[in-house]
């Protein structure tokens, strides 16, 4: 028994140190982006998706739950934030809180339903729930249907920081991303995270050890949904709109793809995956519809030959945890 446990949940002694070094390198690199002349809009967008993919990865990588409807948190938070900023004219911090809170509430409701089944059934239920929400948003007046909520004002964060300034906005988005990332990092390295991994590896055994696994999974789902909502709220400030594309099934597929490319269940994989996919969209935009085909090919290639993803392969090569 011990041998099997050692094999499945391998925790190298220096894991934590490696990960902290990698985190500092990542934060440092991202912090100097505005000085390098890289188009900040691209990086901001990628950061929002990176946070989204990290939140998604918390659920699949550590809880073994594949959600195929994570776009619903992105879209819901986006709509609520955009509506709050534009119609209620609230300051940005309240807008972010409202959007993230709405996503959290949605996570509680959908979680109570979805968590009742596992595996592929869980995936299908989350997919169906997000499609349900998609049809709701098509019909409700406040989302303006196909048009979406356009021209959202960015405002002054805490009354001081002018978010219309792209450098200031960049650091705000970066701060939001790093905050979310650290929450996830802390979660997976906590006793809670260990139980979650145990549930992923062998749920009946975790139950027999006395853990109420349903509660652990639900909590992970809610945390994941809330952080995905935070990503959605931040994205509104970057794109200045909220539209149906953020709630669509295709978006949920993209989130899965980002995580898969970067590496399921790795700490930094989703970040790398998000940057790769967003960059790809940026540079392959000229191919029009072929981008979908290319994405499909990446999906197939990843599943058939490259299941560990970019970061997973690197970590495996160096026998480190990243």
């Amino acid at each position, binding site marked *: 028994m011990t041998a099997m446990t050692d094999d499945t949940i391998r925790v190298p002694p220096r894991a934590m140190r490696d990960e902290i070094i990698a985190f500092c390198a990542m934060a440092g690199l991202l912090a100097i982006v505005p000085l390098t002349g890289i188009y900040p809009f691209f990086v901001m967008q990628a950061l929002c998706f990176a946070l989204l993919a990290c939140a998604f990865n918390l659920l699949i990588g550590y809880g073994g739950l594949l959600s195929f409807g994570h776009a619903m948190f992105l879209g819901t938070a986006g709509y609520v934030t955009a509506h709050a900023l534009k119609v209620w004219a609230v300051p940005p911090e309240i807008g972010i809180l409202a959007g993230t809170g709405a996503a959290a509430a949605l996570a509680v409701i959908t979680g109570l339903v979805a968590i009742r089944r596992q595996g*592929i059934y869980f995936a299908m239920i989350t997919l169906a729930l997000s499609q349900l929400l998609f049809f709701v948003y098509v019909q409700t007046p406040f989302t303006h249907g196909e048009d979406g909520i356009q021209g959202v004002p960015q405002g002054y964060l805490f009354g001081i920081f002018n978010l219309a300034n792209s450098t200031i906005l960049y650091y705000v988005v970066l701060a939001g991303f790093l905050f979310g990332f650290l929450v996830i990092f802390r979660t997976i390295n906590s006793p809670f995270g260990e139980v979650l991994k145990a549930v992923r590896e062998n749920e009946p055994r975790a139950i027999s050890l006395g853990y109420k696994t349903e509660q652990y999974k639900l909590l992970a789902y809610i945390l994941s949904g809330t952080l995905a909502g935070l990503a959605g709220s931040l994205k509104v400030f970057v794109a200045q709109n909220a539209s149906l594309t953020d709630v669509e099934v295709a978006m949920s597929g993209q989130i899965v793809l980002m995580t898969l490319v970067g590496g399921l269940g790795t700490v930094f994989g989703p970040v790398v995956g998000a940057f790769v996919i967003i960059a790809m969209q940026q540079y392959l935009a000229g191919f029009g519809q072929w981008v979908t085909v290319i994405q499909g090919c990446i999906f197939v290639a990843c599943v058939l030959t490259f299941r560990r993803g970019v970061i997973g392969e690197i970590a495996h090569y160096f026998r480190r945890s990243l």
Partner: protein
Amino acid sequence: MQALYAQLLVGLINGSFYALLSLGLAVIFGMLNIINFAHGAVYMMGAFVAYFLLNNAYLSIGYWPALIIAPIVVGIFGMILERTMLQWLAGLDHLYGLLLTFGLALIIQGVFQNYFGSSGLPYAIPDYPTIGGFHGLQGGMNLGFMFLPIYRGWVVIFSLVVCIGTWYLIERTRLGAYLRAATENPTLVRAFGINVPRMITLTYGLGVGLAALAGVLSAPINQVRPLMGENLIIVVFAVVVIGGMGSIMGSIVTGFALGVIEGLTKYFYPEASNTVVFVFMVLVLLVKPTGLTGRAA
């Protein structure tokens, strides 16, 4: 009342598609342990193959042969997919099967979108053979309480026959017995000298062929377009969750029943018609998480 009956008929037709598609999913799931996310894409391919057969200058084969040829062509395509890709996933977490088939769906739909755009291509209701006063499946008849377009009645009855036929094949024949045995214990069945991998390939072909058949049936009703399967398949997934995929008969009954429920909603409260199946799914999950006919686990 006329409108109610019309909506009920539409519900039954949608139910036929739900039943055929969820039946194919159940067959594939039973043998390969894969939720075939590409099911909507192969449904669309079925419709497109029928369209090609009709409109290609050299072939110009009509509806009736297409009803047989299209499922076979798409079924062979499915078997190639199984042989070249899906079989390598055996033994892995079944989430990978879902992700792979999702990727395949993106590729197939993307390629068709590039060549045909997103708008629909028309497919005429067949006008042959002429029997009595009827030209093929065109026109309709007055049942007294409602007007029944012949083609729509045909879709309901034909898919019912196919569903029952598939049920009979799997539950009542020797081949079906091997199939079910191989689902339970492939190693043991192999020991009896049965080629299980070939059986898995054929099963995938059968499931995909059923989807393609649904595609041909739907071509004259819904326009033939690359994304015709995209939204449909999500509803079918909800149907599968509700039914539980525990039994073949379960998928058939649930498919038709949900189509009818959807039709009734369209009549009494149209705003909810797109969402009623999903709402129903939530309710069923709250009461009976394994689904209506589902087994535990």
